[in-house]
């Protein structure tokens, strides 16, 4: 069950929302209304798990109960070494389990191919849905308890509800317990918050259905050729790289918008996961804006414990490379994901070594306007090019396919005859999606919103924005109805 399906939006969501709002509305008169709402949410989340894929549920319950138990043990322990040992047990178990399910299938297939028989059938090691995301949340939870950031959840059912919370279960964002613990204690109904949730939900739906899905055919067609070892013209290679960069952003940020919107509908306020990453002036800035919940997880729970940037340039670069290689590995089992991670690590190291240096807190140097504009553009062009290059590695199934595409991009490969059929993908719909994507991946909407709020009364601006969201939702509906199940790209990770 995906957010962008008719079933989810019109059969699953309305009863869940109505039941939840009813319980929220009882809060002023009934002391246990929030606990009841949490239970209702837990039931809905487990139903969503059941309808999505049942196979991973035993593993999910095992992880949730083990981490909750260990977090409570950590909190109860007064001896630091025991706390560390319990933390190591929790983290080690989580990582081991993630590795078994994430790479066990591939390992089983490799050993079967090499030795003729596998220790375990690959079919037994199906990665439970959303495991990469919920196990990271569990790890952060235990670690934060050990660090004293927050105490363990008072009610284990609240913890289970947070772990299973359907808006963030499958593909994040990796919401931390500290950010939502208060909402599990009290979550009064708020019409403005819920309405803004619907608006966000419709915006995310439109991003996915109207933009990302209509960019996909061109990227898919070019990569299908590259996977088959067929080169394309430099123009098509560049177009496909750009289309995929936009598709990935609108797909995943659309999903995150929907998750944030669903959270608001249920009374939660999740942090932003995408902050206009393609407007970054460096790769470093890109990672502060792209998939923020994941990059901040790696920063807080891996990069800083490794020493961060406090131990000299060489150690910092090593830490960056380790963190990004692991970030790549987190995304999947193929060779291309670690390569993609290493590319970003190298780009960050290059920026650290050769980029402009300025003392912390020092004002930016004064430059002539033309030079400043040139620097502004050059910095963004570098960031965009480095990120797009990374996406070529990320999207390609094999190094060979990436090589074909990169050689095509450089004009060093003879295009295959099949490239002539790519013209069929060039339609006004693709052009419209591409133009909309290229424009809206920059912070145009917030600027328009600010402008509207300056010239219009608050009510009118709010109404206008809501009507816009309604139009987006209505425009997405016919595309949803066609029944083609377009899963979000990040489901596979």
């Amino acid at each position, binding site marked *: 069950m995906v957010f962008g*399906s008719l079933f989810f939006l019109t059969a699953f969501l309305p009863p869940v929302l109505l039941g939840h709002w009813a319980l929220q509305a009882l809060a002023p008169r009934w002391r246990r209304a929030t606990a009841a709402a949490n239970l209702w949410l837990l039931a809905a989340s487990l139903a969503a798990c059941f309808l999505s894929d049942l196979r991973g549920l035993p593993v999910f319950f095992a992880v949730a109960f083990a981490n909750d138990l260990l977090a409570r043990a950590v909190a109860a322990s007064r001896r630091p070494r025991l706390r560390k040992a319990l933390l190591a047990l929790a983290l080690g178990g989580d990582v081991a389990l993630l590795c078994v399910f994430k790479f066990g299938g591939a390992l089983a297939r490799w050993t079967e191919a090499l030795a003729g028989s596998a220790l375990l059938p690959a079919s037994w090691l199906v990665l439970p849905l959303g495991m990469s995301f919920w196990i990271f949340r569990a790890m952060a939870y235990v670690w934060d308890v050990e660090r004293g950031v927050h105490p363990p959840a008072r009610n284990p059912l609240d913890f289970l509800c947070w772990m299973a919370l359907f808006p963030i279960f499958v593909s994040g964002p990796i919401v931390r317990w500290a950010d939502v613990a208060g909402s599990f204690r009290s979550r009064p109904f708020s019409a403005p918050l819920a309405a803004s949730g619907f608006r966000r939900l419709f915006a995310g739906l439109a991003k996915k259905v109207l933009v990302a899905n209509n960019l996909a055919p061109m990227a898919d067609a070019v990569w299908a050729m590259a996977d088959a070892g067929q080169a394309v013209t430099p123009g098509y290679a560049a177009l496909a790289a750009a289309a995929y960069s936009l598709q990935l952003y609108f797909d995943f940020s659309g999903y995150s918008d929907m998750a944030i919107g669903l959270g608001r509908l249920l009374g939660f306020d999740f942090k932003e996961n995408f902050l206009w990453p393609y407007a970054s002036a460096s790769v470093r800035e890109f990672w502060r804006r792209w998939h923020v919940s994941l990059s901040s997880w790696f920063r807080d729970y891996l990069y800083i414990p490794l020493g961060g940037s406090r131990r000299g340039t060489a150690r910092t670069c090593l830490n960056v490379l380790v963190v990004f290689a692991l970030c790549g590995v987190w995304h999947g089992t193929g060779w291309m994901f670690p390569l993609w991670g290493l590319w970003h690590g190298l780009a960050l190291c290059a920026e650290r070594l050769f980029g402009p240096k300025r003392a912390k807190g020092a004002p930016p140097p004064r430059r002539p306007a033309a030079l400043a504009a040139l620097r502004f553009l050059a910095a963004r062009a570098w960031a965009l090019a480095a990120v797009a290059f990374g996406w070529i590695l990320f999207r390609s199934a094999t190094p060979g396919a990436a090589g074909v595409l990169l050689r095509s991009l450089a004009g060093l490969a003879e295009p295959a005859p099949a490239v002539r059929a790519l013209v069929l993908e060039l339609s006004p719909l693709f052009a419209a999606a591409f133009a909309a994507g290229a424009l809206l991946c920059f912070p145009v909407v917030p600027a328009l919103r600010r402008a509207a709020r300056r010239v219009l009364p608050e009510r009118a601006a709010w109404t206008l924005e809501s009507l816009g969201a309604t139009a987006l939702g209505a425009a997405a509906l016919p595309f949803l109805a066609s029944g083609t199940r377009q899963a979000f790209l990040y489901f596979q990770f």
Partner: protein
Amino acid sequence: MKNAIPAAFLALWTAALCTPQAARLLSERTGRPAFEPFPSRTENRRQNPWPDLFEKAPRKVPHSLYGRALENWYHDRYAWRTELIRFGRRVSFEWLQAPVGRDVPGLDGWRFMRITWRELEDYLGAIPLDDAAIAEWVALFEARHAWAEAVGTSVMTLLAAPKAQVRWQQLRPGVRDRRGRRIADQLRDALADSPARDDVLFVDEDLAAAFAAGREVFFYEDHHPCPHGIWVLYERLNRRLRELHPERVGESIPWFDDPPPEVRAGLAPGCWEENRRLVVSSPGERQDDGTIPHDAARYPYCNVQTVRDGGGLTVVMGHDSFMRFTLSSWLGGDGSVRFPFARGVGRVRAFLFHRLSPGFLEWETRSSVPEAFVEQFPEFRLAEARGGGFMDASFRAAAVFARAEEPAPGAAPPPGAKIAARAVFDGVATDAPGAKSCTAVLEAGGRELGRRPVSPGFRRAVFFDPAEPAAGAALSVRLEGGSAASTNLVWRLVRQGAAR
């Protein structure tokens, strides 16, 4: 801001999400269905059933797929789904000119196809054949030519030009202007000096000529030829049959824009269009499916046999929907079929979605030899299979035989020369009753040069791999485990490099 406006929007959006289901429930309660059932008839599938979690095998839905099955069930019952899909397709396909699945929009509402029906890829020259693939197709056509010559029939292949090749005017300019070299052109060039060149019928010029004469030859929204287009295709076959059998094949069934009453009444021959279908009036013709093998072809219930009073040539066709779509209903349940073949064709055996494999050719010649075999498929299918896939060992040797040089009458194989030999047996029977085959053995001076299985039947032709007989040794062929009423053995000289 007060809560009133957000609350109003909240109510509106929640109601909007719930409305279709409420409408569907109310509609079902009142017993007056207000919505078009989904899937619509054009989707050609049944509605998804309610997935019962506790159903016993084999109808049990695996637990891991239960959610998907439930979604599928729900989607088929979502109110206004048909209308929403139509609207979505209209926006994408008609207004924003984007391909939807395999359908690609053209001008004025015309539709072309890609991916599974690769007419546009072929038009653009995106799926050219390499030299080896072309050589394999040529070898197949030459092998069939040699086989047909041996058993006394003809095998013709009608390569149907798809819509994009003939009605390219309706393609969007961005596509239209990028015409490439099509596969059929490659094949036509490769067949230029082949003995099988007349066996392959290209029909693009015939269809283009009909269009130039003011006739529409394709449906605008479908990939099939319209009634006049299909009549043109049959006319091409009639012309070839007339070339092969000038004495026996007579005039065609004429086309009428406004058929006279006696034609409409079925008393005189004629073809015309009615309700977008080709109606064929052929007095004395009837459908008789008695001897059609019902295990042949993908849709055996669509195979038909027609016979005409007075007899005539027998034509066996393996064809796709081009030759049939407008003639009768797809399931064959909408009246009997009449084919617009010329006078003199007495029996037509038509197999839908069927190709002429050596086994099928042998089956159809088990008791008599039809005068003609016809295979029809669209040009781009040449890129989807290898010609070698339609040949067995005997046919591969037949391809060599077709290209080999005929010796002078009465000459013996020269010393050191490679020869290709062909044996034709009439009235083959096996010694063991019920045995599927016996063996033909080719010998030269007592030394065995090759052997081939031969199935019992009216007439059988086998071709042997090229061999080098000893100098002065006489060639002979015999049947092991069977006998034949008569045997004919001929050989040809294999030229250098001719063996494939």
